[in-house]
């Protein structure tokens, strides 16, 4: 097994790793704000829960990229392909957008989520709008996800 395979694996792992870290931080921050609102008004639980979960999707996208890469590498079936360094690097860079945009966008989305939780606490009738602000940030995670998927699918095997 050569460096190429290791690089490809590092790429796949980093997509799940960084996006997962970002989402963990994001959902954690959202949870703190949400818990604060629920102490005052337990009836808002379902609304703030949705807002808390919004930065959680990056972790799922990271998992998605990792899974696509791992299955293409043959790691899932237990017989990883031996790749050249060039191909390995291709996988690595293909996974990079999801890894980094996932990390940063989840953390930034958490800020919008926390603010929206504050909005719902004061004006529960504005829930529909409050959901949109964090969802705007997520667009960039989705674009990164798309680029990563297309790039991995485009690597000649």
């Amino acid at each position, binding site marked *: 097994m050569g460096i190429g395979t290791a690089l490809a694996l590092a790429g796949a792992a980093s997509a799940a790793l960084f996006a997962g870290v970002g989402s963990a931080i994001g959902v954690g921050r959202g949870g703190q704000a949400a818990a604060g609102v629920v102490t005052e008004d337990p009836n808002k639980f379902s609304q703030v829960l*949705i807002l808390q*979960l*919004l930065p*959680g*999707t990056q972790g*799922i*996208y990271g*998992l*998605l990229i990792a*899974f*696509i890469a791992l299955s293409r590498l043959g790691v*899932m079936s237990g017989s990883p392909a031996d790749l050249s360094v060039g191909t390995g690097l291709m996988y690595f860079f293909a996974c990079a957008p999801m890894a980094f945009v996932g990390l940063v966008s989840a953390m930034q989305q958490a800020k919008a989520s926390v603010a929206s939780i504050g909005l719902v606490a004061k004006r529960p009738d*504005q*829930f*529909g*709008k409050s*959901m*949109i602000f964090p*969802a*705007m940030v*997520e*667009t960039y995670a*989705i*674009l990164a*996800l*798309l680029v990563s*998927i*297309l790039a991995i*699918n485009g690597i000649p095997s």
Partner: protein
Amino acid sequence: MSVLPMKRISVIGLRKDRKAILETIQRSEAVEIDMTPLSGAGEDIFTKIDVSSSSQIFTKNADSAEKALEIINTAAPEKTSLLSSFEGRREMSVEDFTSNVSRREAIMKDVQDILRLEKELIQAKADIPKIQTQIEALSPWLTLDLPLSYKGTKKTAVFIGSFSDAVTEESITVRLSELAPEADCDVNVIYTSNEISSAVIVCMKKDADAVDNALRHMNFSRPPASDIVPSKLQEQYENDIKDCDRKIEEINGMLAGYAEERDDIRFIRDYYTMRADKYEVIGALEQSDRTFLLSGFIPAAAAPALEEKISSRFDACVEITDPGENEDVPVALSNNGFAAPVEGVIESYSMPGKGELDPTMPVAVFYYFMFGMMLSDFAYGLLMTVATALILKKFKNMEAGMKRSMKMFCYCGIGTMFSGILFGSYFGDAPTVVAKLFFGKDFVIPPLYVDPISNSMKVLVFSFAIGIIHLFAGLILNMYQAIKQGRIVDAVSDSLFWMLLVGGLILYGMTTDMVVNMFPGALTKLPAPVGTIGAVFAVIGAAGILVMGGRDSRNWGKRLAKGAYALYGVTGYLSDILSYSRLLALGLATSVISTVFNSMGQMVSENLVHSNILGALIGVILFLVIFLIGHGLNMAINALGAYVHANRLQFVEFFGKFYNGGGRKFEPFAVKTKYFKIKED
């Protein structure tokens, strides 16, 4: 698909009929009372009555009842099922209502009793730590067999007290002989620690003053006076705590006893809320000595029935007029059963503003479909539809808002089933995995369109196509709206030119190698003449926007500059279309994660299934556990994502093209109860 036309209703009636007329209107739930004060003619005859004091009493009673319910619930929690939130308000017949109203004094007394008991409970709970502090303060004195206020015998004086540091009998004796050399003292230290030392000092009565003085210099402090020996006192305190505990238990028991009367208290809460609402309206009425004047908004369709009802039963004059041009008319929507469930989505954005059309129907069509594409699994959709349909069937009494959401998710489930068939996803690739694992057969349900995992390019182009249709639908609605309002120039320059430009560019792009190669295997190159037509369209559109984009400026230089800036907005369309790639991305997320869980189940149980019967059984169970947890999680998270992003695509991309909102929701004067619904005859 429409905004209900509104009329203004004005009623002049006799004051003696006031209550009855108001109740008729409240029950009809069709009129929003206008609270703005009267101006112009009649201003000096009519005045408003101040009802704030009685309205406050009713609100306070309702709040007390609500609080009493909470107290009972802490003492005796009510068993509620998971589905109880769907139940809605219970029905109450008019007879029950009247008989309950006659008992309102008695029920309110119970409410007051509950609140009083709660106060006692809090008091008892607060007493315990207080007594515990006293017991702690007693600890330095426990070995003493004299009461703390003991002063001495006939010949001797006794000083009981403490020093605020650690002392010994010698150190005190030495200090005392320095400060009061003539006195002869017997010093007993009975307790010592770093913070406090307690001592008993005995001397002859004649020396008492000198010793007292000396002790004062040594910061000797007296304990709180008490005629009881400390150990006895401690016992007393402990009994007090036991008393408090007993009392708490007793009060809790009494509160739990009120659990039977929960429904009465709920009723009284609703009753006083209704009365408070009514008084608020009475406060808004213009009244003279004998008459009153009421004005409000009513949907045109409901107006004749109510007019007939009021004028036939009472000596009142009802007038239905068209609202004035500048009046702040509230907005109510009316849609068929297919579209009405997404009214909640529209409401959470904003109601249609003046002259705007009701976007519910087009939103519904796209919403169900896009939600479906993002969840995109036949089995998940089926579960959603069946679950919501069952809930809707079982809980007929559900509140309107809840019912609306349930119906919406029911339709979204149908959309999800549809796209599950389109992309061949049934719990991901579960049919294939199960057939292979348990029956050793190769079995695939082929997708109706394509498999998104191996053909993501095709689905991406499909998503963009949906997006383009969505955006054009928005532009067409914008055009329709402008034409309907007679703004033909706006319709052409704000909608038609953009459709020509964007549509033309897309057609032209599809004839170039650059664009076609970007989506390998997913896009067929169009013949060159189509490209020419597209280019012509685009140029006409661009020229039109350049000339008309800044048409509000008189100066032609300024106008063209503004037009050029408007033309730059074409980049916005690019990002709008790209935004629809989330349809692919979220759909892929669902199917890939289901595949992950399916293959996890497969890996865990693969070897077991092929060993022996017991192994096979364990294998099946393990597979099922992973399957249930995995798909449960996946469905929940992706349904949330689909919901949020289906909303986003409507609010940002679709509404951005034609819809501003800003209308005020129609809030009729109605019976706003929480627990009971009074059944009309």
